């Protein structure tokens, strides 16, 4: 069983702490995605799990065994690197067989395994070529093949699709998902792209500045973000944030401009006079002539089937509206909008934490 457990894992370079105590449990067979902005420590965390980077404090447990002092090679993991890191002087076949030769696999068995993997990843025509003669997508397949052929307990992917163009990225994303279904291994996948995270993951870990912000299923993160960072990071386009103050009767959010938005009657723990930020996804904020807030339109994108309206509120906050169909709103217009009250999120402005009371 390849469960992975991180117990208050820390990493620091000198005085700079890059991973500030992370606890995480990944079940066997789960596809876990580490997501976060650049510099959040997600790649470092992956390298710590792989054993390529030492840990300063805490425990990493793989399959029930503490692996802190076990070298990378003996942890039974395989990694796919961002730059693919294929051996440039070896053919594709040699790239695939290198790892197997190192564990003294019999020649016939190596050939058999390479054949199977090459067929599965459709690189069987490329075995005699060198990496420089392959396209980006083919290199990516070879890099994945090199990981698969060793039959590891756990796969680690370090931003494997970031060097591919958009179209190929979508294709390869599908292939990685189907690879996971077929092999059923535990996989950890690092990306800064929240769309990749949402589409691939069983569980997403959102990281920021070396800290775990939230860990859970994709829709759980989308529907019940624990703080404003997760709310803003998950979902595209980004969630809109509207700052205000709770009215004395707890029914209204009073904006600095004097506008008032109705608050949901239940589900949130709020106090009168509390500074609160309301989070509304662009799809849940719609033009409405009787709407409570005014929006001056800065730009409009019409895609035919859907439209995006970008504007700013009276207090200066930027807001995006995503609506289906086409709109007649034009540049420079001021429109009234209203949020769907049952879909809004409330956060404490000072602590940024969600005010959901369950």
């Amino acid at each position, binding site marked *: 069983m390849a469960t992975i457990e991180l117990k208050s894992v820390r990493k620091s370079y000198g005085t700079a702490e890059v991973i500030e105590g992370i606890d995480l449990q990944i079940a066997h067979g789960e596809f876990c995605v580490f997501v976060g902005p650049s510099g959040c420590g997600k790649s470092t965390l992956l390298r710590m799990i792989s054993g390529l980077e030492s840990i300063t404090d805490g425990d990493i447990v793989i399959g029930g065994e503490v692996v802190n002092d076990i070298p990378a090679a003996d942890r039974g993991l395989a990694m796919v690197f*961002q*730059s693919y*890191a294929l051996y440039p*002087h070896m053919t594709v076949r040699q790239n695939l067989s*290198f790892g197997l030769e*190192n564990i003294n696999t019999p020649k016939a068995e190596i050939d058999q395994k390479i054949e199977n993997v090459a067929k599965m990843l459709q690189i069987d025509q490329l075995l005699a070529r060198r990496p420089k003669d392959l396209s980006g997508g083919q290199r990516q397949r070879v890099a994945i093949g*090199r990981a698969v052929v060793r039959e590891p307990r756990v796969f680690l992917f370090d931003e494997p699709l970031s060097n591919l163009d958009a179209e190929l990225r979508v294709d390869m994303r599908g292939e990685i998902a189907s690879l996971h279904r077929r092999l059923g291994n535990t996989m950890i996948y690092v990306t800064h792209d929240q769309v990749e995270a949402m589409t691939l993951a069983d569980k997403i870990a959102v990281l920021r500045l070396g800290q775990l912000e939230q860990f859970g299923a994709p829709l759980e993160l989308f529907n019940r973000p624990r703080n404003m960072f997760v709310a803003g990071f998950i979902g595209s386009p980004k969630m809109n944030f509207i700052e205000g103050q709770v009215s004395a009767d707890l029914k209204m959010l009073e904006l600095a401009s004097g506008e008032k938005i109705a608050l949901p009657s239940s589900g949130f723990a709020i106090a009168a006079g509390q500074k609160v930020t309301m989070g509304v996804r662009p799809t849940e904020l719609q033009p409405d002539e009787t709407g409570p807030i005014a929006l001056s339109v800065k730009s409009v994108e019409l895609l035919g089937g859907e439209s995006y309206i970008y504007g700013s509120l009276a207090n200066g906050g930027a807001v995006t509206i995503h609506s289906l169909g086409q709109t007649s709103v034009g540049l420079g217009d001021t429109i009234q909008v209203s949020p769907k009250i049952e879909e809004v999120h409330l956060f404490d402005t000072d602590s940024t934490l969600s005010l959901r009371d369950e």
Partner: protein
Amino acid sequence: MGKVLSFLTATRGKNGKLHWTDWVSYGYLTLGVFLMFGPVLWLVISSFKTEADLQRFPPTLLPYAQETVQVDGYDNPLPLFLMTGGDYEGQTLAQLRRVGSQAQMVDPANPDERLRVNIANREPVEKLHLATENYTELFERFNFLRFFWNSTFITVTATAIMLLVNSMAAFALSKYEFRGRMTVLLMVIGTLMIPQTVVLVPLFLIVTELGMFNSLWGVIIPGAATPTGVFLLRQYMITIPDEILDAARMDKASEWKIFWRIIVPLSAPAIAVLAILAIMWRWNDFLWPLIVLTQSENFTLQLALNSFQGELQTDWQSLLAMTVLTLLPISAVFMFLQKYIATGIASTGGK
């Protein structure tokens, strides 16, 4: 071949007319060829000259030797002269002996009659002649093969040891993080600033203490690690992406295997450059072998060449012939390895 020819005869001017830049560039290139190959060509031609021909002034370009003839009644072949004046003008005579400005000569057709002529009235009969004995003597009179073997052994062994030591040091200095790495590197580079002559005496004492005096190993070992080599290889190895090494580590390769299977093949262009340099240094090295090797059976070619040049007389024809033979292997090595100098920057498989 046709491609080479059309490349060599390419001109800027069209239709057989030469543009003025053609004149300039071909003139410049011809001068360059002359400057670079002239001395070498002169050396090779001179190595086929007899001793007498080498002493001649003014010198000739091609090797000439005086014709001789076997005359009845004389044991040795006699040199032939063409008479240009006097009583026997137009005749070809053989010289018996010469006293002052007078020479005793004989007509090969009529060997019994001795003729007296003035040496101003004659000139030697000459023909083109390759003095191959210059070369055969090297093998007969001197132990050329012994010197050749000594030089080859020192060059090959020292280059192999040097490449191994330098590439391992460069690998450690470029790819491992350890305390004092920069200090070690600076010390290595720092030794570049110390001239060899400064450390000559201490080095000699160490070599003697270790019992390597008058041994080929005494030449090989002290130069086994060169700062230039370490620095050159390190700079190249830095460009090999760390991710490839990480990938190899994940592939269960030992550090030793990473070195042999990943680092060495990927550094091949730099190693080839260093190999060429090392072979040239070692083959042409003179000062250090001169100090360590004193017995002639241990001499390298360079020392043997030096021994031809005495205080009072110099054995020019042997010196020239051996110089040619000494040049040949190094030129061959250069021809085989030169293509590596420019080729092959490691492609990482990434974009």
